[in-house]
């Protein structure tokens, strides 16, 4: 765990679960595995607080436990899962994907399970039905069956999976059934054969609408009823969690399809989408390429509204195969040609485009030209760089040294003589894609950490001012809605004094400078052929400027997360193929 990852994990835990859990989590990350006592000692917190925090972390799948070094008889050791914590950045994206695939019901199901870590099917169905009923007009309510069917669809497409059952560590000596051991250890979820099997539950009814007047009472009764009811539903102990890997595969597919659509055209994007859809079930998560599909199969599986003739499809496939991005490859000639989608190569190309885009945005297009040149030609001397890039010598030197100081370009020495004399050594510039991608990923983590900290700072500093201006806005809006006179409006506006107005104005100027400086440099585009967005004329709207700043910081976090996802997928794919 790098320092930046630890910092980001700490910030995320603090945002969602509070300071106590952040303290516990950070100590666990820094120290590797710890027992409960050691953890309480390190964090200097009350033992009960530590226990509660560990419950929260285990519930959300961010912490695992197992028998310690002394075996099953010794104390339990806790081990934190950093990647799971970093996934918290991506929760909105998961929920939005579920919404786009399975509608509002799917969205709420995924949201509930994400917020609570693990849930049984019956409790999920009830909660979601209640929430949907709440939003529906009076008199209507959501039937449980609809929610159950949405849940089943999510499970069938593997977006939700059962939490792995606890494998109890039994002592080999005794044969009799002892009391259950103090430590039960979870196993890999996929290894359980019933991972995606829906339990049979008898659940029928409608969502209950919650009246605001009997808030507390209804909650009590509902909570009590839910508890007694879940035991009747028959799925006690079967908890479901979100299958992040499946979502990531979906995002990867989306990235590939959008890249192809950008580079070639919409139809080619559809063809690749069809190929990926067909090989969803047959391809394993780490496969370098999908199963080979024949052109006949692809033709049959194309969506019906895409009426392209067979020869046109063949031409498109040939185009895709010949494209230098190498998204699609040809694996044989039977059945009209066997085609595969090269997943790992596509990821590598997307990562490369990301790197090039970052260099271009930070250092200019000439530096980007040098960077691309070095990526293509691997090793070049300084003189050769100047010649190939067609840039005057002085500027080329300056740019190369800037890139070198930022660690984007490396220097390789090749001595001609054993004494490494500088006059008799080749100095070659080179770019290694994988280490550079890792470097950029760490930059991204640092960026998101900075964004979060800045947002917290801004919110804290301007809380009072923000609240006051929001109140005034609300008053103004309501007055305008009821058709008030101009004098009344001016009177209300004067409630913000002049110094406060000045403060708001200065905050307004901070938006374009501070936040973009920290976040803008690490944003990127997925494909190099996407057109650059034109400079947006930034007119600060009348809304609260500090609020706007916080909103832009928030939005930047989401967008840096896209880059993080691409780079992480690329790095993981290279590790898998080793």
């Amino acid at each position, binding site marked *: 765990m790098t320092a930046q990852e630890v910092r980001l994990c700490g910030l995320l835990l603090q945002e969602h679960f509070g300071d106590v859990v952040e303290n516990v989590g950070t100590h666990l990350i820094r120290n590797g595995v710890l027992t409960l006592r050691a953890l309480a000692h390190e964090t200097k917190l009350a033992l009960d607080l530590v*226990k*509660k925090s560990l419950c929260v972390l285990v519930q959300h799948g961010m912490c695992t436990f197992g028998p310690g070094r002394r075996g099953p008889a010794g104390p339990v050791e806790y081990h934190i899962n950093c990647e799971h914590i970093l996934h918290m950045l991506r929760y909105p994206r998961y929920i939005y994907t579920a919404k786009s695939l399975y509608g509002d019901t799917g969205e709420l199901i995924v949201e509930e399970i994400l*917020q609570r870590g693990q849930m049984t099917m019956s409790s999920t169905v009830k909660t979601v039905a209640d929430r949907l009923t709440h939003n529906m007009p009076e008199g209507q309510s959501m039937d449980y069956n609809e929610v159950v069917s949405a849940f089943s669809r999510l499970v069938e497409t593997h977006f939700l999976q059962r939490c792995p059952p606890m494998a109890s560590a039994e002592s080999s000596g005794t044969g009799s059934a002892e009391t259950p051991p103090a430590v*039960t250890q979870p196993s890999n979820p996929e290894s359980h054969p019933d991972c995606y099997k829906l339990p049979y539950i008898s659940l029928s009814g409608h969502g209950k609408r919650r009246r605001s007047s009997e808030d507390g009472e209804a909650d009590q009764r509902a909570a009590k009823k839910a508890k007694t009811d879940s035991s009747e539903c028959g799925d006690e102990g079967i908890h479901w969690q979100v299958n992040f890997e499946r979502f990531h595969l979906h995002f990867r597919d989306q990235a590939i399809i959008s890249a192809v659509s950008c580079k070639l055209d919409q139809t080619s994007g559809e063809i690749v989408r069809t190929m990926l859809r067909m090989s969803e079930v047959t391809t394993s998560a780490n496969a370098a390429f999908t199963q080979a599909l024949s052109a006949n199969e692809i033709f049959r599986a194309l969506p019906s509204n895409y009426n392209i003739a067979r020869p046109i499809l063949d031409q498109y496939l040939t185009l895709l195969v010949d494209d230098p991005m190498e998204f699609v490859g040809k694996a044989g000639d039977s059945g009209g040609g066997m085609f595969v989608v090269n997943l790992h190569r596509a990821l590598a190309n997307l990562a490369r485009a990301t790197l090039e885009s970052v260099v271009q945005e930070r250092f*200019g297009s000439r530096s980007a030209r040098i960077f691309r040149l070095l990526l293509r030609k691997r090793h070049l001397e300084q003189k050769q760089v100047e010649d190939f890039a067609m840039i005057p010598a002085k500027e080329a*030197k300056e740019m190369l040294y800037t890139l070198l100081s930022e660690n984007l370009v490396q220097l390789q020495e090749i001595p001609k003589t054993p004494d490494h004399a500088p006059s008799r050594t080749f100095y070659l510039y080179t770019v290694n894609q994988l280490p550079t991608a890792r470097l950029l990923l760490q930059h991204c983590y640092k960026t998101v950490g900075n964004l979060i900290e800045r947002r917290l700072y801004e919110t804290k500093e301007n809380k009072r001012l923000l609240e006051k201006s929001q109140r005034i806005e609300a008053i103004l809006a309501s007055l305008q809605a009821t058709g008030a006179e101009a004098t009344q409006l001016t009177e209300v506006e004067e409630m913000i004094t002049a110094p406060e107005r000045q403060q708001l104005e200065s905050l307004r100027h901070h938006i374009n400078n501070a936040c973009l400086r920290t976040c803008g440099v690490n*944003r990127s585009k997925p494909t190099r052929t996407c057109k650059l967005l034109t400079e947006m004329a930034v007119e600060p709207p009348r809304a609260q400027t500090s609020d706007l700043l916080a909103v832009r910081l928030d939005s930047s976090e989401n967008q840096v997360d896209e880059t993080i996802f691409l780079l992480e997928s690329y790095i993981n794919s290279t590790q898998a193929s080793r």
Partner: protein
Amino acid sequence: MSRGRGRNQFTFNVDALGFGRGDSLPTTTHTPSPLFPPMQFQPVPLHTGEEVEYMLALKQELRASSKNLPFHIRAARTKRDVSRYSDKYQTGEPKNNTIEWSPDWSRLPKELCIKVRKPQKTITGTKQQLKQRPKVAASKEDILQKLETLEKEEVHSEEEEDEGKKKKQNDDEEEEPEVEEDYDEEELEDETDYIASYFDNGEDFGGDSDDNMDEAVY
């Protein structure tokens, strides 16, 4: 005749340095480089669109709602210097030794087991501090029996705001009664600050004073 055949020459190709003889070197820096150096190239503006806006709204909602979930752990406030009258009425404070949600204990190691605390009803007047001391002395079996009878009663009358006894029934892992949560039923009936038995509605007043009008009343 040259003074030294190799002496006046550099050992490497001078052009590679980037500056020739006689050119001035760049000035030395006296301060560390600025923390936020001015950017040469302006960053690209953020993405906009329906998808982006929706995800942003989702993110803000998630953040706000996660503060209200029981997973957001706040440490209990340490006791201030003296015990105050208001402590009696502040029942919503989190306590360190209870957990506000009930996880599936079979999936967690035994050592993490902690008393589950059910969310309290917000009634002003719950007298938590009035511990029923005699009950502590009662034996475990008596308490369990009483719990069972009360359970049956409670199933029939859901209108009873009998918070404390409900908790006892549902909490299987209790070994001793939750003394803190036990309080008299009648005190809750009116949902007021006043214990019913303490209240004297003054009907009896004035009946005694008819006898002795001469004596002063202190």
